[in-house]
């Protein structure tokens, strides 16, 4: 008996040391998240592991954007069509109007059926990403080809488009000035964007979601826009809306006829700045082109003196000034009676470059800073009251043993928070609900053990043995019952979105920590308590 006691005591020492070590690590992880500690001397020694708060607690904008990858593929198809026409001409082949067909296919007509072999060889050599889906002999010695993209290339294009979209969006957000944005790709051609601290979704979407496809086109003033409305338009011309703004910012749209082919696009821009116009209080955006762009711009302006040059952004014309003279030096200006904010945002978007494909907002969730703070306060209040109620109940119901359970319960909360900090997990409002549930589940383990001990005591088993049996028999049951909760939490994590994931994480962490605190640590307390008393003295449980 003495030998066993000594063994137990030595064993106990190790268990106490382990618990203290775990506690020390947990405190190091949790303390940086306590307000006010970060800036003290202590805060500088401790690791930088503050618990991340979810957008529902700190406020911010959550966006799910859908990237129209099909559009990017279609654009690529169109430009390949033009390339085919050009390459064919170099080889003395005549190819007519390559036109895109639905389902990312392309139609091209070859004139001169004798040259089929040459044309097919050219396609195979210069356009390995296309394959011939079918051909049909047409009258007048023509052959119609239906071309489609290889699946691998389509996949590659989709990935490229998404990568580029993410890069562009990140670029724009960085320039917009958001602290710690989170931008990530999601399956199904989607991009998730989280912008903490922002609360004006309209403006954020305007900056992120704008395709910003800038084109310069020559205006065809020989055609009356009114006649075009009835469906008469010349080849290579298009009808576009021109935005005209009144001095108060109200806008109207009038039709304007442009030559379809852009003379210059936004890809040659190296810089864009918002500038104030000298004669009024309105803002415009000044652009700087790279060397190639500057050269093109000089040539275009020289060739089109006295004509109007339209500046088209995402299909809408913002201004169409008359070209007075050749413009060299590679600078241009977009005027459109912008407000300072609009001009600044437009400059950001143009600097960061165009999106490779249009994006649409599929989901948007904005939590204002007030609501976030309210949720934090309410969460702390609810957690505190739940904890106090349970602590009081346990102390009254199980007396000394209940106080042990209370101590390990507090330990459990600290460990759960430490786990959140260590894994860099995010605490959300449902996550706080998870902590409250964990409080209930953690005491459940102690309730199971204590009820078992009481049962054994009622049977007349000696206290020491009863404690031993209680822990022994209840441990397996606790493991069993908690497993189902962990399974459910993992499934929730797998299928849930942001806030729900926060719930799943705190639930799993809390349950795992409760196994340690309720089974391991509370046993230490019991052993310490039992070792100080006579073997058959009644237990306070």
């Amino acid at each position, binding site marked *: 008996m003495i030998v066993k006691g000594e063994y137990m005591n030595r064993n106990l020492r190790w268990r106490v040391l382990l618990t203290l070590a775990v506690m020390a690590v947990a405190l190091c992880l949790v303390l940086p998240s306590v307000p006010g500690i970060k800036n003290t001397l202590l805060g500088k020694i401790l690791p930088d592991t503050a618990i991340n708060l979810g957008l529902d607690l700190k406020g911010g904008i959550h966006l799910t954007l859908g990237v129209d990858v099909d559009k990017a593929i279609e654009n690529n198809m169109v430009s390949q069509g033009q390339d085919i026409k050009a390459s064919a001409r170099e080889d003395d082949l005549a190819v007519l109007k390559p036109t895109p067909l639905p389902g990312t296919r392309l139609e091209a007509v070859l004139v001169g059926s004798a040259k089929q072999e040459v044309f097919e060889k050219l396609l195979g050599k210069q356009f390995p990403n296309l394959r011939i889906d079918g051909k049909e002999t047409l009258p007048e010695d023509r052959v119609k080809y239906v071309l489609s993209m290889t699946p691998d290339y389509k996949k590659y294009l989709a990935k490229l488009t998404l990568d580029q979209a993410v890069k562009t969006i990140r670029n724009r957000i960085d320039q917009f000035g958001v602290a710690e944005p989170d931008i990530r790709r999601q399956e199904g051609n989607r991009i998730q964007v989280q912008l903490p601290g922002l609360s004006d979704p309209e403006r954020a979407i305007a900056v992120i979601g704008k395709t910003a496809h800038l084109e310069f086109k020559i205006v065809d003033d020989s055609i009356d826009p009114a006649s075009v409305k009835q469906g008469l338009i010349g080849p290579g011309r298009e009808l576009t809306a021109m935005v005209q703004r009144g001095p108060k910012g109200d806008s109207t749209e009038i039709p304007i006829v442009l030559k379809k082919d852009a003379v210059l696009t936004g890809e040659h821009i190296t810089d864009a700045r918002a500038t104030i116009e000298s004669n009024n209080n309105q803002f415009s955006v000044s652009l700087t082109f790279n060397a190639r762009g500057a050269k093109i711009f000089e040539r275009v302006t020289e060739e089109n003196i006295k004509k109007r040059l339209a500046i088209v952004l995402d299909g809408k014309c913002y201004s169409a000034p008359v070209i007075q003279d050749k413009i060299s030096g590679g600078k241009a200006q977009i005027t459109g009676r912008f407000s300072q904010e609009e001009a600044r945002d437009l400059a950001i978007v143009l600097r960061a470059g165009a999106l490779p494909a249009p994006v649409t907002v599929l989901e948007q969730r*904005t939590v204002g800073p007030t609501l976030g703070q309210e*949720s934090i306060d309410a969460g702390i209040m609810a957690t505190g009251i*739940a904890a106090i109620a349970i602590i009081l109940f346990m102390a009254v119901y199980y007396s000394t043993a209940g106080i042990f359970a209370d101590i390990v319960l507090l330990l459990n909360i600290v460990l759960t928070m430490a786990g959140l900090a260590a894994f860099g997990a995010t605490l959300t409002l*449902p996550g706080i609900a998870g902590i*409250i549930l964990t409080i209930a589940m953690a005491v459940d383990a102690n309730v199971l053990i204590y*009820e078992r001990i009481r049962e054994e005591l009622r049977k007349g088993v000696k206290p020491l043995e009863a404690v031993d049996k209680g822990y022994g028999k209840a441990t397996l049951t606790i493991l069993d019952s908690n497993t*189902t909760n962990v399974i459910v939490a993992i*499934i929730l994590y*797998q299928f849930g979105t942001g806030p729900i994931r926060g719930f799943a994480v705190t639930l799993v962490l809390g349950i795992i920590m409760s196994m340690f605190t309720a089974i391991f640590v509370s046993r230490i307390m019991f052993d310490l308590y039992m070792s100080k008393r006579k073997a058959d003295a009644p237990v306070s449980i």
Partner: protein
Amino acid sequence: MSFSFIKHETKIDFIGFRYYAFAISALMIIIGGISLVMKGGPRYGIDFAGGVILQAKFAVPTDLDKVKKVLEGTNLPGLVVQQMGQVKDNDFLVRTSTTDDSSANVQKTVTKALDEGFSGVKYEFKRIEMVGPKVGEDLRGKALEAMYFAILIIAIYISGRFEHRWMAAGIMAAGLFAGITTLQYFHAPQVWLVLGALVITLGLCCFLRLNYALGAIVALIHDVLVTVGFFSLMNKEFDLTIIAALLTLIGFSLNDTIIIYDRIRETRGLKTGETLPVIINKSVNQTLSRTILTSGLAFLAVSSLFVFGGAVIHDFALAMLIGIIVGTYSSIYVASPIIISLTKPDADEPVPAKAKTKMA
């Protein structure tokens, strides 16, 4: 000094009450079902239905009816205006079913109407959410998928763990997987997949005589149906957090069930020569104090969340509160007695020694 609600082992005849319990459960499910049918299915929140919500807070006391009246002029489709939280908060929730319009446009429309209707009154939008139809559909699919996986994994776990028949559990998993793959092959809608999964699981449990798993799953379905029915009766919306609450209560209810099953297994192992109903009744009684304590404490904790946790988490807490009560009831009155109803009459004989070897 210490207290206890139950000083000595109780001898309540839970098993004898089982037919009444089954009738009560059936009644609750039927009432909930009628409510669901009358209302044309569950009332989906914007997470699942798509749409826009705005939460507006007014600086001065404002009447809900006036807000409603002002916003009715906007002709926004499916407009619903509700008070959020307590009346003194002056928080209003505006919801529309617009999905083809951007949230910015809805915000503009609402702002314009409020500015005109309440000129000079300050308000702010505390929350703006827009879920497009595509995302809503995806989230619905994800929620159903989560339910399906929960049933699958729990069925396997319980069969394996409680009857030590991992083989049978494996067969069931394979059967379930094959069944679902077949359904997927025919492009069955997701709702059918989940229903199919349920039917296959129940069928296989019956066929393989996995009575414990069957009892536990019937109890889970019971809990979910009763809670969903209650929510429909109370006209509450279903959104992602409610699904999370339903899954959590599945875990919680199962927790209770497992603890009782554990005791049944232990008592059967003692080979006292008692019949199964006696053993089950004894086990339920022996674990009763723990069941009441744990459920009571969980109820207490979630009540705190319900009362103090704020309007955003309110419905989640409500679903949990209902779930805790229903789950506790089902562990005692559904999951355990059903084992008797499922077991062949010869099991009323003293548990044969064979059972022991089967469990080893």
